[in-house]
């Protein structure tokens, strides 16, 4: 009975997917063509972003200017999505040291520490600084070139993960433990939230913002965008590393 039902369910699913494809293809063919300059998407909004972004926000990269200034509320929500995701993963996977004993062995033997690997360690001696520098470049130049807090933060988080795998938990927890994680993320999120609160308040009440926008193509050209990019980068790299360590061994060791 159950098997028959499963088969029926599978067939229904496939039929549903096919109907869905057909309906969506009909819909899509009624949409304007791709790549046309006269599409409704290329309207006054995108023109405003392109022409005014470099002056109003100081960001030559219109995408950065858009996500961190014009549509900053979305991005504020998005960084907090990362934060609440870490909270949910903490709720699920956090193991306190004393509760570790009564877990079945099958779960425990996975969190072993990796043996020291000389090849990995030697090669990463050169690689990790390069990755860090690249990540910092991507974050700091987010308003001048492609990139920004999210991609740069992910790159730095990846560097942390590599460091952990090459040199072991002991050595990374000197500077990257639960305390620094909490303080860094919390400060970055608070800075982000408060800075944006100020900008929203000033903007909605048509007051003059005290944050200077130089708009001269230098690294400090863009008022709040550089600090915000750094804050986002800190949050993202912290989140990435915290997620990894949660999956790996269920928590920081100190």
């Amino acid at each position, binding site marked *: 009975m159950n098997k028959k039902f499963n088969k029926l369910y599978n067939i229904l699913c496939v039929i549903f997917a096919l109907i869905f494809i057909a309906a969506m*293809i009909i819909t899509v063919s009624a949409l304007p063509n791709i790549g046309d300059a006269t599409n409704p*998407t290329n309207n006054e909004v995108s023109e405003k972003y392109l022409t005014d972004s470099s002056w109003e926000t100081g960001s030559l990269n219109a995408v950065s200017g858009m996500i961190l200034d014009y549509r900053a509320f979305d991005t504020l929500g998005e960084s907090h999505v990362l934060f609440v995701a870490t909270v949910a993963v903490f709720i699920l996977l956090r193991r306190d040291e004393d509760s570790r004993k009564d877990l079945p062995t099958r779960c425990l033997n996975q969190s072993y520490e990796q043996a020291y690997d000389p090849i990995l360690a030697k090669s990463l001696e050169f690689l990790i600084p390069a990755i860090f520098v690249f990540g910092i470049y991507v974050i700091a130049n987010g308003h001048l070139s*492609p990139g920004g807090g999210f991609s740069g933060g992910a790159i730095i988080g990846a560097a942390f993960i590599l460091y952990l795998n090459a040199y072991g938990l002991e050595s990374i927890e000197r500077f990257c433990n639960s305390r620094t994680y909490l303080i860094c993320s919390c400060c970055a999120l608070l800075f982000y939230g408060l800075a944006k609160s100020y900008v929203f308040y000033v903007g909605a009440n048509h007051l003059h913002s005290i944050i200077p926008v130089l708009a001269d193509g230098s690294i400090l050209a863009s008022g709040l965008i550089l600090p915000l990019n750094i804050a986002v980068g800190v949050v993202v790299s912290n989140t990435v590393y915290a997620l990894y360590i949660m*999956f790996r061994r269920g928590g920081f060791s100190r």
Partner: protein
Amino acid sequence: MNYLLNNLPEYSAVICFAIGFSILLLNRNMIKKILGLGIMDSSIYLFLAVKGYVAGTVAPIVTLAEQAAGVDTTLYTNPIPAGLVLTGIVVSVSVTAILLALTVKLHEEFGTLNIDEIIHMVREEDRRKE
């Protein structure tokens, strides 16, 4: 033919969405479900990203000279979809992380990745309690 070639990204995004959707529905394995969800999400982002493309333009990063002289908007692609997709990618990776954490926890508790078996086991336990 030319029309089809032009709008191919949209069609393939829609098809990938449906494939991801059917992976999500047909598979009982949690990992496969997560992969299906990932395919669904990234096909939506592809769909959204091509909305910003304008033929014969470059990425929306203006130069200083242009900033001074006034930007010619016909030279650049539309920045809005790029920004939205950037938001979306980050959302989808955090969702993936939570689903994986759930999977790990389910595997610890039930010893299986098959969602049907898990539901069955929970129901059995519930019945035994009565």
